[in-house]
């Protein structure tokens, strides 16, 4: 058991180091002095601000130090929670910007991921080997999973917000409302949250439904399913077993598709001007606010690693085979 966790943690540690190194290396790999390029591309009227920025960047990049020292300081500031300063919202630290945006993204991402996983698996299991359901639901599933996240968001926004006026076009809450824990504010939050959530949910739902349907069909062809049939077990029992077994790879899939769902969340936020990480990153990209981009990247990495670890733990709890296998090799 411990060996297994240590190995997993080892992989995550390596991943983290690789990601941080890449994050640090990318600006260095680009031709020319990145600071000059950066400052040159920022359109600031006030020469004092430009001067200020230049010095700030020189310090942040530590360009005058040997490479290994620059790398070392990158880690040091990282562990101090210092991800640099935003240019666009100078002098707000990147960490502050991210921490403000994070709740909105998580509020979309977590419910959309978990609910789509749950509902998709239920539907997929229902569709498997039931001709009519399979033939009607499956095309929808494929269409959904092939839909770019932003396009569905655009369509939903256009139809529900612009054409029908049922939902707001964007933003996280009514700008006229005061930010407080009042009923009015919370309902405004929920009202604005719904369309982006639905959009994320639907695309992910298609993928899970199809995955489950295919897995179940394979499970129903497994030897244990045939044996149960031969012993006259009702289809209900066999399908229950098949569903449970098919869920296991779907749990692993949850970790594997996380990157894609995050990408989906980012672009969905852009469509709805929803003030999460995606919206921030979009602003940062269009304004060349590099520290924000790099900072968000590191945050996403950390989030994904944590999520992977949680999935690992869940998997061990759910699948007796890994549990026993580990005990066997550990003794």
């Amino acid at each position, binding site marked *: 058991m411990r060996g297994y966790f240590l190995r997993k943690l080892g992989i995550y540690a390596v991943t983290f180091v690789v990601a941080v190194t890449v994050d640090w290396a990318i600006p260095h790999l680009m031709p020319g002095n990145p600071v000059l390029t950066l400052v040159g591309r920022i359109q600031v009227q006030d020469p004092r601000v430009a001067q200020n920025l230049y010095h700030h960047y020189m310090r942040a990049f530590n360009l005058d130090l040997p490479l290994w020292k620059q790398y070392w300081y990158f880690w040091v500031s990282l562990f101090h929670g210092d991800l640099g300063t935003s240019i666009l919202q100078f002098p707000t630290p990147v960490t502050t910007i991210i921490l403000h945006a994070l709740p909105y993204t998580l509020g979309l991402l977590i419910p959309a991921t978990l609910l789509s996983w749950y509902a998709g698996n239920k539907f997929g299991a229902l569709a498997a080997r039931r001709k009519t359901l399979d033939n009607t639901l499956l095309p929808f599933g494929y269409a959904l999973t092939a839909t770019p996240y932003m396009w569905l968001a655009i369509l939903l926004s256009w139809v529900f917000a612009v054409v029908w006026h049922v939902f707001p076009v964007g933003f996280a809450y009514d700008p006229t409302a005061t930010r407080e824990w009042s009923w009015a504010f919370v309902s405004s939050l929920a009202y604005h949250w719904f369309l982006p959530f639905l959009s994320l949910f639907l695309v992910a739902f298609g993928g899970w439904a199809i995955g489950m349907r295919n897995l179940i069909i394979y499970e129903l062809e*497994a*030897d*244990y399913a*045939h*044996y*149960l*049939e*031969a*012993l*006259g*077990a*009702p289809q209900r*029992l066999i399908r229950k*077993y098949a569903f*449970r*077994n098919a869920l*296991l790879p779907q749990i692993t899939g949850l970790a594997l598709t996380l990157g894609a769902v995050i990408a989906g969340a980012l672009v969905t936020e852009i469509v709805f001007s929803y003030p999460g990480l995606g919206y921030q990153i979009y602003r940062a990209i269009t304004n060349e606010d590099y520290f924000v981009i790099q900072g968000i990247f590191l945050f996403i990495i950390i989030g994904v690693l944590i999520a992977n670890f949680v999935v690992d733990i869940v998997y061990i709890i759910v*699948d*007796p*085979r890994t549990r*026993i*296998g580990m005990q066997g090799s550990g003794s």
Partner: protein
Amino acid sequence: MSLLVDDLKVYYRTLAGDVRALDGVTFSVADGEIMGLAGESGCGKSTLGNSLIRFDTRMRYVGGHATLDGTELPIWDTLGMNAFRFKKISIVPQYAMSALNPTRKIGDLTADLLTAHGVSPKQELPELRRRLELVGLDPAVLGMFPMELSGGMKQRTVMVLSTLLDPSLLIADEITSALDVSTQKAVGETLVGFRDRGFVKSLMVITHDLSILYQIADTILIMYAGRLAEKASGETIISSPRHPYTRLLISSLPEVGIRYAEKKLTGIPGTPPGLLNPPQGCRFRDRCPLASKKCLEAPPFVEVEDEHFVACWEEAA
């Protein structure tokens, strides 16, 4: 009479047409009888075993009847058969090692199965434990997952589970083929023990290995190319077979003591016919040294002596 099979025909659907894997077989298995069913691969023996309990998706019922303890089995009806499965007729499949759901504890699986058949798991538990012990398993296996058991242990578990409700007929499909000689013997003896203790009334043991059948079976039924060739007591089949196929087959089997240098055995030339468009008449005709014109007509499976059935014109005459 425990099992009566009458002119049973089951084909396999393929692109090119029907493969006549089981083309009209008629035989019976008596109460308490262990019947061995032997033949080469593709002769239809497993098809026969499967068709009595569970049709796979490619199998097609063409005709005939199977009667167990006086009741006709609705073998063509997947759902209708559920009333008989497990309680009246059961199977230890070829894939016994992978027959248990890997993610369910064996005890829970058994309980699920019993509940589904309207039997109280609690009530069966003492008997289940007793039988596990009888086959040399610690009842603690009920709390284990299949992966914690060895292949042999899984097979014994399946044997106990399949026979828990004392079915009238148990089909054991190639259960010794993947085993070492020492374990083969133990499994064979376990099967006989099940019959002797009344866990099963009758047994149908399907295998390609005649010498195993000689050890454990009361009677042996030889199949060839989708049809029956010969049925008699094990002793008779081995020492005085009457169908030319059986005779040639037995004379081709080496035994400890027979050596190439001293006595060179010979096989049967040729191969069995394809069953997609099987030849008219006796299907062994092409390989048979005794074949004559008469063999263009299929020989009936008739009783030539008491409890000795043969499908050959030479013998029927």
